[in-house]
């Protein structure tokens, strides 16, 4: 019975397998998976990253280490469980050499082990930097071309001290990154924290309750962390409530090239902190911003710049190894050198494989053509290390 059945079984199995097409063992290109959000209200961020990845590919001439490379984009739909499943598909089915991307800390945390441990694949986060991965969950297969979540608000806190802002009301979304961001500003800010509110993520786009509380508390300033569509809503509602006339807004990741077209004049003059700004004066950055603007008629954001850097970091390792990525130890060793021209200027990797870098204060302004953008007005901190690296067992 069994031998008889084996024929059709094999055929059936092959038919099913046909869906995934058998691997061709010829000179295969380098494969890079890229996980981001390409649908829903936050798709604009994913699109900005995709454009920058494509620009990086163009600037590299489509090759790294002498080999052509292809990029497979996957949509996490803004959900941790979907991001994890898509990452698994990239690792197991597409068998990618690197995975980059990840806007959201909760998506990254859900996906991390699937990629780095079970898939033994190198992951380059182009945005999310949850504290756990900088500390106890640090991983030899994990690299960041962004920052650890606490760092940007820490820079903002330092700046608020020098500016003499006496009391601050903190609002942020209740997920991994939101907790880190609010913890970050509290690490450095020396004034009074009037209150801290966390809102439901990502469902809550109506901030009327929080704004009413802020109006009642009358702080010197509001500190927010609301990326993308949420930042647009917060700024609009802040203006609608009339608070924009009485309480200034200080922000991280909430007013940027993605959100400014929709926030418009409402955002004018607000201050934020960032590790990269479009006017940083290095050559590679000038080229990147100019080419991006020429193509898309908008400014790139730090999401895009970090994604561009992620591809360049992968390319630096592939180039050094002449396209042979089979020895992961060698790949990791090359990546750890950060031997590439980052758009923020050169940086070094800390032991937990997060960058040691500067942070700047930026202001929302109108450019010569009347388009909303941000410009650097001060350097908040230099060569900053994140506060968690000592918890990371890697040396």
């Amino acid at each position, binding site marked *: 019975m069994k031998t008889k059945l084996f024929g059709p079984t094999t055929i059936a199995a092959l038919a099913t397998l046909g869906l995934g097409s058998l691997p061709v063992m010829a000179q295969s290109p380098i494969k890079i998976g890229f996980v981001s959000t*390409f*649908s*829903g*209200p936050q*798709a*604009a961020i994913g*699109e900005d990253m995709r454009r920058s990845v494509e620009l990086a590919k163009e600037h590299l001439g489509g090759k790294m280490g002498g080999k052509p490379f292809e990029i497979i984009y996957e*949509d996490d739909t803004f959900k941790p469980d979907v991001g994890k499943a898509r990452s698994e598909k990239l690792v197991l089915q597409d068998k990618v050499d690197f995975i980059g991307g990840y806007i959201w800390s909760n998506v990254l945390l859900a996906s991390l082990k699937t990629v780095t441990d079970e898939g033994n694949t190198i992951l380059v986060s182009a945005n999310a930097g949850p504290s756990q991965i900088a500390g106890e969950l640090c991983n030899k297969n994990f690299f960041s071309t962004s920052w650890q979540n606490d760092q940007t608000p820490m820079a903002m806190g330092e700046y608020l001290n020098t500016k003499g802002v006496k009391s601050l009301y903190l609002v942020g979304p*209740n997920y991994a990154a*939101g*907790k880190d961001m*609010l913890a970050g500003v509290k690490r450095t800010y020396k004034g009074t924290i009037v*209150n*801290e*509110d*966390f*809102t*439901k993520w990502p*469902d*809550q*786009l*109506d901030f*009327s*309750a929080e704004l*009413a*509380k802020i*109006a*009642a508390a009358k702080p010197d300033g509001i500190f927010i962390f609301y990326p993308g*569509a949420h930042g*647009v*809503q917060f700024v*609009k*509602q802040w*203006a*609608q*409530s*009339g608070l924009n006339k009485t309480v200034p807004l200080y922000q991280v990741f909430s007013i940027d090239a993605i959100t400014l077209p*929709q926030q418009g004049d409402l955002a004018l003059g607000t201050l934020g902190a960032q590790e990269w700004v479009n006017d940083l004066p290095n050559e590679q950055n000038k080229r990147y911003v100019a080419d991006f603007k020429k193509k898309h008629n908008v400014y790139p954001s730090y999401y895009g710049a970090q994604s561009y850097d992620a591809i360049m970091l992968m390319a630096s390792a592939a180039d050094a190894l002449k396209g042979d990525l089979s020895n992961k130890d060698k790949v990791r060793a090359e990546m750890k050198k950060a031997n590439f021209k980052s758009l923020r200027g050169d940086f070094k990797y800390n032991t937990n494989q997060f960058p040691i870098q500067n942070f700047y204060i930026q202001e929302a302004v109108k450019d010569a053509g009347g388009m909303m953008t941000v410009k650097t007005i001060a350097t908040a901190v230099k060569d900053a290390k994140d506060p968690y690296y000592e918890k990371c067992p890697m040396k």
Partner: protein
Amino acid sequence: MDYLLIQMLNGVQLGLLMFLLAAGLTLTFGIMDLVNLAHGSLYMMGAYIAWTLIGLTDSFVLGALLALPVTFLLGIAVEVVVMRRLYARDHLDQVLATFGLILFFNELVRAVWGPAGKSIAVPALLSHTVEILPGVLYPAYRFAIIVVGALVALFLAWLVARTRLGMLIRAGASNRRMIGALGVNIELLFSLVFGLGAVFAGLAGLMAAPISSVKIGMGDDILILALVIIVIGGIGSIKGAFVAAMVVGQIDIVGRAFLPDFLKTFMAPAAASSAAPAISQVLVYVLMAGVLVWRPTGLFGQRN
């Protein structure tokens, strides 16, 4: 005190939006005995259609007003093509088919309007604040939602209590066979009621759009809440839907505006704000379970 008043108004505003969504649902449920999971899709379609029309007309009011008849026609089309075939079926078939419709509408929106979602700006006319009491400011747009919602509620009350259509609706909710015996064109009545429900859902969707966002699946979760509301209120009862929506609106605001600060007195802020919305949601479902145990057909439901 000001804070309390503003929060209660926010609760009223949320409640009225949910009442609009629940009104159509409770009518189709009560009269046609139809479990319509796709009602949330009409909420979403209303917002997307309004987005397109607002873009075309360059006016929020005009676009929104034009979106209503379009949503009405869409509702009629859905009724004629699919729903009509489901009235005589059991609830399982209805759940399955309307679940299929949700998938269809979500992907349709993705194909037509793209995956990214849209945003509708608050109309310039209403983007300021109004002084509802001396020294108490409230966003004009939210105030407008309350006004429109209240007007629609009054209109519905009048429609159900004073008109022939309303009489048929009341008759249908309590005894489906009777309206047939009255020689009424039932097919037409059902289409009208369904279309009306679609308009209210669409209106809720487009009014909610400026304070949330227009996105795929925006109706999926609010639909569940609307279902809970009509079950609490009693299936088929407009009055019940109104009362339940108001209660649920206030519970939601308590969970968001008051509970976190209370919990923060003995919990970490992040834990408090995880727990608070969870507790208010749980309260809503406990309320529903409690009502069903106390009155198995809801607060104002018809008893068989």
